[in-house]
C-alpha cells in the first residue's frame, strides 16, 4: 500500500466519528422533520393524524406571507452581507499591520460576536430607547432628533445591529487569510516599488478571494435566516415589515399551529442553503491558486 492510499484509508477511519456524530445530531432530526412534513401533525397529536403527502409543501409555498418574508430576508441578507464583508475588508487592510504587532487587540474586536443575538436585541432595546437610551441621548445632545425604531428608521436599525455584531466574524476569517500570506510577498512587492494600496489590491485581494467568497456565503446564509435580535426588538413588525423567513416559520409553528407547513418550509430552506453553500464552496475552491 503506498503512502497516499494509506493516508486516504486513515482519513476515512478518522472521519467515522464525525459522520456518526452528524448522523445522530443532524441526520435524525432531519429525518424526523421530513416525516413531520409529510404528515398532518398538531401539538395535540405529534405522531400525526394521517399522511399528507406534499400538501404541507404546497400550502407553505402558496402562502403569500412566505414570499414577503423571503423578500425581506433576501434584502436583509444581501445588504447586511455586503456591508459586513466590505467593512471587514477595510478593517483587514487598515488594521493588519497593527494587529501583526499586537495580536491581543483582535480579541477586543471579536467581543460583539461573543454576545448572543437575543441578548444583543435586549441590549439594544435599552440602548436605543428614546427616554433612557444612551444613543438617542447623545444624538439629542448633538442636535439630531432621530427615532431609530420609528417607521422611517427601523429597517436601517435592525440591519445596522446585524452588521455591528457580525462584521467581526467576517473580519476574523479575512484576517486569518491575510496573515497566512507569506511575508516574502510584501518584501518582493516593496522591492518592486509597489505602494501599500497597490499591494493590497493587486496582490492581497486576489489571494484572499477564496476566503472572501466563503465568508460571503456563510454570512449571507446566516443573515438570511436572521431571527433573534429582530424578534426581540420589533416582533417582526410593524405589521410584517421586518418579518424574516425564520420569524415567519416560528409564527407559523407556534402562533398558527401549522406544524407540518412550518417544518416543510424549514426543510425547503435547509435544502436551498445546502445548494447555495455547495456552489459557494465550488466557486471558492476553483478560485484557489494552484
Amino acid at each position, binding site marked *: 500500500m503506498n503512502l497516499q492510499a494509506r493516508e486516504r484509508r486513515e482519513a476515512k477511519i478518522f472521519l467515522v466519528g464525525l459522520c456518526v456524530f452528524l448522523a445522530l445530531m443532524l441526520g435524525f432530526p432531519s429525518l424526523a422533520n421530513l416525516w413531520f412534513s409529510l404528515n398532518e401533525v398538531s401539538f395535540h397529536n405529534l405522531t400525526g393524524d394521517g399522511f399528507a403527502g406534499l400538501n404541507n409543501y404546497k400550502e407553505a409555498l402558496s402562502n403569500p406571507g412566505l414570499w414577503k418574508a423571503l423578500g425581506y430576508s433576501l434584502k436583509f441578507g444581501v445588504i447586511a452581507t455586503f456591508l459586513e464583508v466590505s467593512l471587514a475588508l477595510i478593517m483587514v487592510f487598515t488594521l493588519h499591520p497593527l494587529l501583526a504587532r499586537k495580536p491581543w487587540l483582535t480579541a477586543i474586536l471579536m467581543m460583539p460576536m461573543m454576545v448572543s443575538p437575543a441578548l444583543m436585541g435586549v441590549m439594544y432595546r435599552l440602548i436605543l430607547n428614546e427616554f*433612557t437610551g444612551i444613543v438617542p441621548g447623545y444624538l439629542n445632545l448633538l442636535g439630531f432628533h432621530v427615532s431609530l425604531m420609528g417607521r422611517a428608521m427601523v429597517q436601517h436599525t435592525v440591519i445596522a445591529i446585524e452588521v455591528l455584531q457580525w462584521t467581526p466574524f467576517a473580519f476574523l476569517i479575512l484576517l486569518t487569510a491575510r496573515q497566512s500570506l507569506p511575508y516574502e510577498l510584501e518584501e518582493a512587492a516593496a522591492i518592486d516599488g509597489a505602494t501599500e494600496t497597490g499591494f493590497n489590491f493587486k496582490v492581497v485581494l486576489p489571494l484572499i478571494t477564496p476566503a472572501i467568497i466563503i465568508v460571503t456565503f456563510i454570512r449571507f446564509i446566516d443573515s438570511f435566516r436572521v431571527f433573534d435580535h429582530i424578534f426581540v426588538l420589533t416582533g417582526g*413588525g*410593524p405589521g*410584517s415589515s421586518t418579518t424574516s423567513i425564520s420569524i415567519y416559520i416560528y409564527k407559523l409553528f407556534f402562533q398558527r399551529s401549522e406544524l407540518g407547513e412550518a417544518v416543510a418550509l424549514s426543510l425547503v430552506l435547509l435544502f436551498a442553503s445546502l445548494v447555495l453553500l455547495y456552489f459557494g464552496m465550488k466557486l471558492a475552491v476553483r478560485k484557489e491558486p494552484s
Partner: protein
Amino acid sequence: MSLLKNLSVSCAALAIAAVPVMADITVLAWPGGPQEEALRKVVAHYNETSESQAELLYFSRDNFFDKMLADVAAGSKDFDVMLTATYNVGKYAPFMTPINDLINDEVLSTYPQGAIDTQSYEGNVYGMPTDLSLHFLYYREDLINELLSNAAWKAKYAKISEEYLGTAMVPKPADQWSWDDFSAAALFFTKSINPESPVAYGTVLQLKNLLFNIMIWQGTAASFGGDWRDADGNITVNSDAYRRGLELYKKLIDAEATPADSLSYEYAEANAAFGAGQVAFYTQWSAAFAEFIKPGEYPAIEGNFDITRQPAGDLGPKTHYHSLGLGINANSERQDEARAFLSYLGSNEAMEMYLANGGQPPVVDAIMNAQAGDRPDMLMMADHTAKYGIVMNGGASSVALGIYSNMAENFTAYWADEMDIDAAINNVTEFMEEEFAK
C-alpha cells in the same frame, strides 16, 4: 421476648412503609415581578407545612407559553403544575387535568365564581387563579390638575382640539374621560403641537407587533361596542366599533402624540416613557402600579400620579381582563401531590399571603379589604373588573392566541401605514373565520 420485640419492630416498619409518602413536585410558574416574589413566599410556607415539597421552576418571560406548549406537547413530566391564563386555557386544556372537584366551599370563600370562570374552558376548571390583570389609565395628577384650572391652558386645549378633532373641547377630570377627551389631552400635551407642554408627549401607545398590545388596545374597540363574534358565532370585527378604535390610535400616531418609536414599544418601554416624566398619561397593565409606587424607582413621577378607569366609548369604559393561574400537567405522574398543592393555593391563608407579598389575586372582597390599606390598586382592580371587564367572544378558545397575534400583525401594519384599514380588517376577519372553522 427478643423475637417478639424484633417482630414488633418489623411490623411497625412495614406499617410505616405501607403509608403512601407524598412525592415532591415541580411548579412551572410565571417568572419575575411581584408574582414570582409572592409565589416564592407561599411555596416556602407550603413546604414548611406539607410532607410533599414544591420546587419552583421558571422559564424566561420571552415566549414563555411557546416553550411550555412545546414541552407539554412532547409529553414532558419535568413539571407537575403548570401555568395557565384566561386567553389560552382552551389551547392548553388538552394537556391539563381538570380540577373541578377541587372547587369546594373553601376555595369559593377565597375566590368569587367569576374568577374561577376565568380559568375555565368548556365546562371544566383547569387552573387555580393567582393573578388578575386588567388596564388602568395612568396619569400625571399635576398636569391634569393644571389643565383643569389654568385658563390659558384651557383656551389652548380648545384650540388644539378644534384644529385636530373638529370640536372645541373643555378639559375634564381623567376619571370622566371619553376617548375624545383622551385624544384631545394627548394632542395638547405633545410638545411638537403645543410647545408650552411640560412633557414631550401626551401619551405613549404600545404598538409593537405583539399580542399583549392588542389586549390593551381592544378595550377601545369594546367601548364602542366591538366584539370578536356575535351570538351566532359570526365574525364581527368588520364593524364601526373596530374602525373607530383603530382610527383613534392612527390619528394619535400620525399627529406624533406618541413617540415615533412606539411601533416597537411594549410594557417596559411604555413604563420607561411615563416613569421618565416625559408623558402625561397612558393606558397600561395593572401590574405597573406596583412598580411605580416603589420608593426611589421613578423619581420623576413619585407621589405625582394616579390611576383611574380607561376612557369611555359609546358603551362606557371597557377593559380587557384575564387571570393567570396554576393547573395540573396531564403528563405528570404526581397528580395527587399536584392536587394537594393547588388545594393549598386555593385556601384563604395562601392567597392572603400571596396578596400581602405583592401578588394580584382575584380574591373575594373580605380578603381584598383586609389588604386595602397597603394595596389601593387591588380594590380598584376588583371594582373595575366587575364594572368594565370584557372577555371577547372566543377570547378563551383554543385559537385565541393565534387571533391576537394575527390582529397584532395586521393592525400594527395599518398603524404603520403599511396597509389600509380595510385590508387589515379583512385579513383579520378571514383569518378568524378560518381558525374558528377548524
